[in-house]
């Protein structure tokens, strides 16, 4: 039954767009991109790691692809992959260092990394400095440059289906299952004692998460046809965290629900930036306080409350996560 519904949805996503208005295609593109970013971040949030710097990896992907396309005239499709690989490589290098840290230390170190990335892109003319890089071309498809919304929509849809499919199945693999064993310092000790090389698994998870951020970041850059240090900012990272938390960390569907609903809603609040951040913040607080499991826990709200009350009784005031 579940696969039938999925196939139905996919068919709709492929067949309906030609009838849709360009604006709806724009919203669909943004929704699909945010869904992949949110699910990519979910890979490490499911592991108990909170990152306020994923926008940095998205920016690395976007800049890599943009530079290859504008400076070397490389095929844009290769640029997408290069964007993902560059972000993954950087994640591997930095992961070995930052993943030794846990809790807020990790979050702030990734945040610092994103600030340095933006500072570098702004400082050096090679990266276009503060003006960024304009004229980033759309991909060619059998001789046609996909400049229309419809054309590029299918590029984003294809990338999203592959990415979300991979990330969904990843949770079902033993690799995905093992990541659950690394949530806190104690369970990591236990994991080591049953033969799990925690450092390697964490780094791999971080690399996978950043690969898809870089890949979709590259596509994002080509959608805007422009990359600049002012697009993938600190607030971009917090939005992704909000999608995850609002949707719920309990399952793969949480971040998907969170990102789709909040992005679609955000597109309506165009009149003022602070309306959108107010709505995001209120939704986030209501969910964190009243729906412990996030929006997808809605049907099983009573259980979620019971579990929290039980957990709450034993919890210390000073959180133990160092």
């Amino acid at each position, binding site marked *: 039954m579940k696969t039938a519904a999925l196939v139905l949805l996919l068919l709709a996503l492929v067949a309906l767009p030609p009838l849709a208005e360009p604006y709806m295609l*724009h919203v*669909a593109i943004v*929704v699909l991109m945010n869904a992949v970013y949110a699910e990519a971040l979910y890979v490490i949030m499911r592991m108990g790691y909170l990152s306020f710097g994923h926008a940095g990896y998205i920016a690395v992907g976007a800049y890599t692809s943009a530079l290859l396309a504008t400076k070397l005239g490389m095929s844009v499709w290769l640029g997408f992959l290069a964007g993902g690989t560059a972000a993954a490589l950087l994640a591997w290098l930095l992961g070995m260092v930052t993943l030794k840290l846990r809790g807020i230390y990790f979050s702030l170190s990734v945040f610092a990394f994103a600030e340095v990335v933006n500072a570098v892109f702004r400082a050096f003319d090679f990266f276009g400095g*503060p*003006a*960024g890089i*304009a004229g980033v071309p759309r991909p060619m498809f059998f001789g046609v440059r996909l400049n229309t919304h419809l054309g590029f929509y299918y590029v984003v849809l294809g990338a999203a289906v592959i990415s979300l499919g991979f990330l969904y199945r990843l949770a079902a693999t033993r690799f995905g299952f093992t990541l659950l064993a690394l949530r806190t310092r104690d369970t990591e000790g236990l994991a080591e004692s049953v033969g799990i090389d925690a450092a390697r698994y964490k780094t791999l998870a971080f690399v996978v998460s950043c690969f898809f951020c870089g890949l979709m970041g590259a596509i994002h850059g080509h959608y805007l046809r422009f990359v600049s240090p002012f697009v993938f900012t600190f607030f971009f990272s917090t939005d992704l965290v909000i999608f995850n938390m609002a949707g719920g960390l309990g399952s793969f569907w949480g971040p998907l629900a969170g990102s789709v609903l909040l992005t*679609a809603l955000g597109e309506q609040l165009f009149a003022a*930036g*602070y309306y959108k951040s107010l709505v995001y913040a209120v939704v986030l607080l209501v969910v964190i306080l009243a729906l412990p499991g996030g929006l997808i826990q809605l049907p099983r709200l009573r259980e979620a409350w019971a579990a929290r009350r039980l957990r709450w009784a034993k919890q210390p005031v000073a959180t133990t996560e160092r």
Partner: protein
Amino acid sequence: MTCPHRILTLFAVVALSVVPGLPPSAHAQKPLKMGAIVPVSGPAAAFGLGVQRGMEFAAEDIGVFTVAGEKYKLEVVTYDTVYDPGKTVAAMNRAVYNDGVKYGVIIGAGVHPPILPIIRETGFLDLAFAAAGRQITNGENPTVFRIMASSDQLYQTHLQPIIERLNVKRVATLGPNDELGKNDAKVVRVQVEAMKAKGVQLVAEEYYERGAKDFGPALLRLIAHKPDFIETDGSPTGSIALIAKQARELGFTGYFLNSTAVLEAKAISDIAGKAGDNIIALRIWAKPPTQLYAQLADRHQKKYGEAAPGTMWEAYAATKWVADVIQKTGTFDTKKVADALAQSTYPDHPFGPASWGGEKTYGAKRQIILPIPAAILKDGKWEPFDVRTGKFD
């Protein structure tokens, strides 16, 4: 709710939420929507606020007008870009493809590159409030007009005369490290080099993070070069006031020049106090140049209880000018309106008679040509600082 239903509800919610806005209520006349695609939050919010209010005043004054036999009323719709290129693309997509907006004011050279393709594809008539960015007003973008004096224009006409009048020898620049700051610095460098014979030289060039509050580090290095004139490019009110205050604290006694800011004398003197004196601001009128200018200033003070941001007048004028041209040409086709607009002049612009120019510099007649004032701040009040201005075409 098992999993498949959850997916279907997700899809339904998405489809619902992108349903185009409510159909316009059918009152007497149809609305002509004009977009204010400007930052209304974030560090550059004051720029956007002025444009939004200026356009609304213009809509009130224009009232009902007829185009090809139909009655219309101007409706201003605001799209907040937060001065972020990504959000500006979202705003343009919403305005152009969903709300059917064909005309609008867009702030920021930095946010233009990603939307220029959309403007070229749809023929959106963009009244650009962007001092920098040669790639905005040129032959490739026929429907883009710059409705404020550009950096090139300001510096080509004013920098050398000001330097001569103040007998300045050592010029330094301090601007935000974004598109605006870097572009202005380039233009200033060219102008100062042109005065090498008169012993004028560029002694230092520094940048700060837009929205930063502490300029100590940048100023220290600058003042070490003993400048007697600091050009602060497009620094907004908050920044120029703090730069003046902190520079005076570090012993700088020379002049400041600011070119594209939204400066209110009161706001600067509140922050900088006496340190604000000797700030020379281009595009700021010490005395209202026209009756209309003064009326708009009072009207804003009455309605909002605060001084009008400096972008209000130019936005007001551009909106009325375009509405007049649409009425005269009797069509909404932006290509035709653009051509007619380029040939037209606008005598009752609040700054004074205005026309279009800039073929030599930009290769297209899309740069507004209007009187450019200069003023100097003395004890919290602007005083005229008239200099013989150079030519710009």
